[in-house]
């Protein structure tokens, strides 16, 4: 298999510089609700992100992607309880208090929220919402902040940026708001960007532009990125590695080409199958049978077992361990070979 060109380059860098792991999650667990009957939104997740790397995070809606990102920044507290370790450059963010976390937030780690409609304060001008970031994290004076804010809006493709600084969020379209959020997140040149579906509301041309921007920042400044998305195309075009989540748990991690072209987990396989490609127009698409599980009623074993075409009896009770199936490629499934066979068969049958 031919490595993607981008990856190729990056791979070379890796060999040379021994890429520095900036973020490492160890057994991250985030739960809500009462302690007796918790809703475990993120369940024992471990992965790491290197500097200059873009990690894609995909998975079912409600599988805990956003909560994972929020847990990293500690903004699920106080209602959500975060356990495990979040090692940011060796420091455990989970153990830090609010004040210490504040120094990390925005400056070192920035986040783009999923809902562009509700994540901007409706009462403050866009300019102010950008520049308050600059006030908090840079020493720029008012004039310089204005210039920087204009530059940022320009960067994310808002036309007439200078004149729009004084506008309020409700005067922007959904896509524009999303871009404003991206601008805010990028304002202080973070070392890690947590991007939660940053381009859902954007059309492909703008999406392309934004993703390019993120990519170039990542490449040129070594910014690490965790990119949550539903669009496999975006993953394929942008990410270096991909993690797949289901039911609050990680089921597969690997390089982009490993996951997209050579997925092993039945959920990941199902997901990829659902994309309309190489199917006749207006014919039924594949979709994973069954409904997503309630997070507070997951089986002790594999979260996907209820919908899995290859599940065995042990899947219900026994949590499948992460097994390495290739360089960088890990899968958590008891029956990954059956799964592969099952989906290949189906494909063949079609």
């Amino acid at each position, binding site marked *: 298999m031919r490595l993607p060109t981008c990856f190729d380059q990056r791979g070379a860098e890796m060999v040379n510089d021994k890429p520095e792991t900036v973020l490492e999650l160890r057994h991250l667990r985030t739960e809500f609700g009462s302690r007796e009957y918790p809703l475990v939104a993120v369940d024992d997740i471990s992965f790491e992100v290197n500097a200059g790397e873009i990690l894609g995070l995909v998975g079912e809606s409600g599988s805990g992607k956003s909560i994972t990102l*929020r847990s990293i*920044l500690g*903004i699920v507290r106080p209602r959500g309880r975060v356990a495990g370790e979040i090692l940011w450059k060796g420091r455990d963010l989970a153990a830090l208090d*609010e004040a210490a976390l*504040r*120094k*990390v*937030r*925005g*400056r070192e780690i*920035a*986040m783009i*929220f999923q*809902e562009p409609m*509700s*994540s*901007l*304060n*409706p*009462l*403050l*001008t866009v300019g102010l919402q950008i520049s*308050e*970031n600059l006030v*908090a*994290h840079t020493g720029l004076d008012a004039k310089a902040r204005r210039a920087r804010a204009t530059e940022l809006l320009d960067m994310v493709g808002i036309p007439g940026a200078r004149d729009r600084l004084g506008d*309020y969020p*409700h005067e922007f379209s959904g896509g524009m708001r999303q871009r404003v*959020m991206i601008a*805010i997140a990028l304002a202080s040149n973070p070392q890690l960007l947590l991007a939660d579906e940053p381009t859902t509301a954007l059309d492909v041309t703008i999406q392309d532009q934004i993703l390019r921007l993120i990519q170039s920042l990542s490449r040129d400044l070594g910014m690490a990125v965790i990119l949550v998305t539903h669009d496999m195309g975006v993953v394929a075009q942008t990410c270096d590695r991909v993690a797949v989540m289901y039911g609050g748990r990680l089921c597969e991690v690997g390089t982009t080409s490993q996951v997209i072209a050579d997925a092993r987990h039945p959920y990941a396989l199902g997901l990829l199958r659902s994309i309309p490609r190489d199917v006749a127009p207006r014919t039924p698409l594949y979709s994973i049978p069954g409904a997503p599980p309630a997070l507070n009623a997951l089986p002790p074993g594999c979260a996907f077992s209820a919908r899995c075409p290859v599940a065995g009896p042990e899947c219900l009770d026994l949590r499948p361990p992460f097994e390495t199936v290739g360089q960088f490629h890990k899968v958590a499934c008891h029956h990954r070979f059956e799964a592969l066979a099952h989906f290949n068969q189906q494909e063949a049958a079609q």
Partner: protein
Amino acid sequence: MPSISYLLARLLQIIPTFLLVMVFIFLLVRMLPGDPAIAMAEAKATDAQVEQIRHNLGLDRPLPVQFVIFVKNTVTGDLGRSIMLKAPVTEVILDRLPTTIFLALYSVVLAVFLAGPLAFLAAVRVNSATDVVIRSVFQIGLSMPVFYIGLVLLTVLAAQLRWFPVGGYGTGFLDNLHHLILPALSVALYTSAIILRNLRASLIEVLDADYVQFARSKGLSTRIIMTRHVLRNALVSTVTLLGLSIGNLMSGTLVTETVFAIPGVGRLMLEAIFARDYPLIQGLTLTFAVLVSVVFLLTDIVQSLLDPRLRKA
């Protein structure tokens, strides 16, 4: 800023309010049993004397004539003479109004300072013991008559501890602050209870909002998050309520003014009603109408300053 046409429209709207109030108050006041002549002469005057007084006051004229005179005089700025105080109504009102406005504003400021931080605390620790205790304590303000709370405050803080004077008001700003603290406090206890509940509810909502989470993710200081993002947004709805309470206070301080011996318009209104002092009642009502309209206008302006979405043309 709200648009100028909006401001103009709002100002013009005071006119119909005014007319409405004028008609209502004129009729209603004359519907009351007893009239100034009886109230004035109390029991002692003979029927003939009462008739004489009535004639002197022009009350024996037909109602429409009286109304036309009332409207004409009002338009020219003449509110008539108070029957009870034997002085021009305008003079009497202007004499007493500042005290009441001072008291109302003072108590609102106190209420905000009381309720604001505690609402924050309650909202941040929602449903905790702290929350319940704060709400319970403020409930007292909503449940006890002002005359009772006022009396307790006076007895303990003024008469016994001698920290503050018993009733009355002072001369000059600082002296007034000192004199009026107890009455302002007793009104504030009530207002703050209402504000607290409302603010707490809005705060709970706002604290949960995505934009607050987003602000946190930016690494902003708690102070900025709380003031710029949380408080400001929570205030939008509280401002309306605050406006309503100030509007209420203007005419609603009468018991306080009585208990604390403050010569304000609230007490004056009470006295005027019991004396059936028609010109004074009318004058006071119109004054309240102006004040309330101004307060509402201000709250609208403040609100649209806070919330750009409300800046409609």
